[in-house]
């Protein structure tokens, strides 16, 4: 089947546009997630966003509002509870509390399994034209936040002591990244789903880290990979009818494995050349 047939449908064009914005944001922010090793927070925030969305369904408000509110509270909670180097315990507990309230909303609202499923695994073919604009704005805001803090985020990771001496706060960098992740989550939820946002955040950026040697090079490669993975997944999902998230996860893992193999092969060659 010719995958380009899908562009004949308006809903598919919307999905394609929204997914592209999301992919750029995920690739960009993913670079910082990988750099700072905050994989757990990147996994937890979308899941908490899911609880926010089910709350929004229960109270009948806009789901983007529910997701943003919940991820913002969660990001603040993780930041406030975290100790110096033990962010993981705070993340796990905030995640459990968020999901616990999510389970409460679902059971009180008597929501159907199908609603929960589409929130968890994404429903890319259900994006409206106003949804596209919302997604674009929120993705742009998330990117703007990490770009504004680019230097602090890099400096505090690469040369922690020097950054402290120069007055750059690791804490500020943490807050900025968490807030940006929260925003990106709200944009991604309706498109890729809560669970698979994580694949798009971590996979392409991890692959780019093995290929690139400079920060901006890595960011560009990560965005490019993320776009390719998203487009391919959309085509495959449209052709086969399986969930988008499945393809996103498999292609991300594949990109990571391939990048590792390539960097290992190249590394061996340069080592041989040096010897």
């Amino acid at each position: 089947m010719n995958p380009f047939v899908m562009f004949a449908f308006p809903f598919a064009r919307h999905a394609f546009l929204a997914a592209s914005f999301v992919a750029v944001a995920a690739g960009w922010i993913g670079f910082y997630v990988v750099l700072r090793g905050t994989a757990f927070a990147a996994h937890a925030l979308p899941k908490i966003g899911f609880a926010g969305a089910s709350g929004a369904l229960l109270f009948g408000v806009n789901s983007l509002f529910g997701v943003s509110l919940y991820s913002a509270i969660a990001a603040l909670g993780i930041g406030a509870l975290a100790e110096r180097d033990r962010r993981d315990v705070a993340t796990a507990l905030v995640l459990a509390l968020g999901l616990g309230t999510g389970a409460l909303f679902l059971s009180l609202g008597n929501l159907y399994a199908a609603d929960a499923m589409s929130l968890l695994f994404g429903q890319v073919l259900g994006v409206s034209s106003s949804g596209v604009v919302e997604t674009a704005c929120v993705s742009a805001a998330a990117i703007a936040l990490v770009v504004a803090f680019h230097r602090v985020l890099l400096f505090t990771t690469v040369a922690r002591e020097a950054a402290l001496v120069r007055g750059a706060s690791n804490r500020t960098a943490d807050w900025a990244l968490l807030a940006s992740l929260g925003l990106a989550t709200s944009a991604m939820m309706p498109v890729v789903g809560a669970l698979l946002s994580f694949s798009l955040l971590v996979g392409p950026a991890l692959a780019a880290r093995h290929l690139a040697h400079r920060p901006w090079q890595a960011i560009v490669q990560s965005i490019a990979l993320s776009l390719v993975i998203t487009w391919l997944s959309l085509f495959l999902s449209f052709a086969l009818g399986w969930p988008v998230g499945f393809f996103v996860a498999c292609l991300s893992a594949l990109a990571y494995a391939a990048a590792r193999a390539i960097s290992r092969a190249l590394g061996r060659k340069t080592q041989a050349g040096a010897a």
Partner: protein
Amino acid sequence: MTLGWIGEALASAPVEHALIAGTEIAFLSGLVGAFVMLRGQSFAGHVLTDVGTTGGAGAYLVGMNGWFGFLSFGVLASVGMELAGGRTRGERDLATGVVLSLALGFGALFLYLDAQLAHANASMAVLFGSLFTLDPALVPWISLTAAACVVAMLLIWRPLALASVNPDLARVRGVPVRAISIAFMVVLAVAVETDALVAGSLLATALIVGPAATAARFTTSPLRAGLVGGLLGALLVAASVLLSYDSYTWLPQHTSWPVSFFVAAFTFFAYAIAAATHRVAFQRRAEVELP
């Protein structure tokens, strides 16, 4: 307020099963959780719940026992994560993240196919499971598993404690660090997957991390942290089961609030209170130490 409803709750068979199974797995989780704290493996513990969900969904798909799916995927993933581990915590978390991402992808596919084959409720049971719908025939098996895990933990306790705190010293003393770590990850996987099967994957994260993290604020000994964490977890679960039973009458539409909500809320606030009181002491000491 009268407390007659507690007696009424205890007389009901599902509540009794929920109390027995719930407190047993909570105690085991607290005990194992002490080492999850010591080794900084909260993320791994949480990942095992998601991996188990994928296994459970896969087992439903091929018509096997759900527990088998949970356990086999969990044990495989735990050994895989231990072998793939990186040097720093950030790197290890990223390697864990790739495993998680793949597991979630396949979970999405399995649940989708489950739904196609008209097991729509199966997916909700796998994700959110409930203590009250526990199969009574499973209760003795859960007790047996919990007991076996506690015995296994006590057997490897001393070498595990040494290997967790100082792997180099442990190696010098002749402790097989790798083998001990893998053994611990297998016990962790069994504990997490049993939690997830009995009470939903959400409860597993709360029970493994919460009580042990709270106890670790007050003591530095892993044995004391494990015992206190286990007892605290069991207490919280028992209170949650009873409250969940009573909550049926709280709102006009008569829906009982999920046990996992109460457990998550209790563990979170227990930790938050412990963290707030501990932080003061920590800062006071830090002021003296730092130049």
